[in-house]
């Protein structure tokens, strides 16, 4: 697996060699802050917590992570570099893992750069730092799962727009399964156990505990296994 390193390095720095990284970072940081202050009425809440900041993450990721992930394989296919990559002595698994980790590391950088929000909460009041750290962990894990889906869908096509739209739809479905509005409808029509089971597949269900400061191993397992599964399918699709 040592071949993961050059693939990772190349992919990670490629974000910063093009405007993609800067546009993404600016949009992500602005959108997350604006949503927190104006839609989430953070000041009016008068609570020193980042609850309202993290509340918007699943929705933000829905649009932004497909935008960051759509190029992963589509771009390689479109420019023909996929032929170069797969005639170098690298296995498909190493290439998939290397590229995925690079994109994930980039997303983690973006998430970590929201630290002024935490500093602001710390300046204005006395937030529970444990909850904030747990929320950051949850947010990064969730971003990883979104990205796994995007990496997989981008392997199907050389068209980035198609890749973006399909990623968005798949992620949207995974979100809606656990969205309170939708799950209430489910609970009304389906048996409770079945409704719970369906809601269990959602990002919301597993992200929520993190924002309350609860790090439940089962939630971590959910995000990691979803990521692992999508990457496994990713390898299969590329080897087809």
């Amino acid at each position, binding site marked *: 697996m040592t*071949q993961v*390193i*050059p*693939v990772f*390095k*190349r992919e990670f*720095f*490629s974000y910063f*060699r*093009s405007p993609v990284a800067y546009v993404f970072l600016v949009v992500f940081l602005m959108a997350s802050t604006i949503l927190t202050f104006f839609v989430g009425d953070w000041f009016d809440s008068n609570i020193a917590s980042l609850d309202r900041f993290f509340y918007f993450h699943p929705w933000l990721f829905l649009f932004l992570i497909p935008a960051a992930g759509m190029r992963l394989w589509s771009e390689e296919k479109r*420019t*023909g*570099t996929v*032929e*170069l990559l*797969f*005639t*170098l*002595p*690298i*296995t498909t698994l190493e290439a998939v893992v290397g590229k995925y980790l690079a994109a994930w590391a980039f997303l983690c950088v973006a998430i970590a750069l929201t630290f002024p929000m935490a500093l602001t909460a710390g300046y204005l009041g006395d937030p529970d730092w444990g909850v904030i750290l747990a929320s950051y962990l949850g947010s990064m894990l969730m971003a990883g799962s979104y990205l796994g889906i995007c990496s997989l869908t981008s392997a199907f096509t050389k068209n980035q727009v198609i890749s973006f739209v399909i990623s968005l739809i798949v992620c949207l479905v995974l979100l809606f399964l656990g969205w309170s509005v939708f799950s209430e409808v489910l609970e009304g029509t389906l048996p409770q156990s079945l409704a719970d089971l369906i809601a269990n597949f959602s990002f919301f269900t597993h992200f929520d505990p993190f924002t309350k400061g609860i790090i439940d191993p089962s939630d971590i397992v959910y995000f990691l296994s979803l990521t692992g599964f999508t990457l496994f399918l990713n390898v299969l699709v590329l080897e087809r």
Partner: protein
Amino acid sequence: MIEVKGLTKTYGSKRAVNGVSFTVQRGDILGFLGPNGAGKSTTMKMITGFLRPTAGTAIVDGHDVTQEPVAVKRKIGYLPESAPAYPEMTVQEFLTFIAETRGYRGHTRLAPVDRAIRLTHLDGVRHQTIETLSKGFKQRVGFAQALLHDPAVLILDEPTDGLDPNQKNEVRALIKEMATEKAVVLSTHILEEVGAICNRIILISAGRVVVDETPAEFQARQPGARLDEIFANLTQSDV
């Protein structure tokens, strides 16, 4: 060095490559000829392990490409058609990446990168991003990438495509010079090129090998005729 045995590739009901077999020895420069769509690139993609053959296999320096693809990829330097490269990287960054994937880590990666840049005369554009390069330079970057690890086997898909006449001669001279201790397979549309550098010709038409001989024997098929006339006669079925 290369032993191709009954390579076949089908797409749906269409047979792109149909039972292609040949061998290439060290010191050989094999010219791969054929009309567009005859299966030249597909055959090369199967030998380099990019495409999985429907049937048959290729053995490169003792490694079967269907069994040990990574071992085969280590032995081969491959220039894909139209020399794909990551456009946002500089020549130096790109070749350093290739060196790292070829197992040169730390400071050992400098020497092969420098050597490849020197051989392909890329010094002047070393720190330019690949997207800003002309077609000829891009082609040379692809060539540099292929010979970076001094491979025993070179597979070049249209290596002189897009080069001006001087650059073509230069690339041919380079291929000739390197071929003494390597096995080289190159595809081309330029028949004169085959006469100039190859010591063997393989002509494929509609996915099959129709000719496998030396350039002299090829010429002897129709003494006095131009190479393109012989080519046209042999590939009529394809037109």
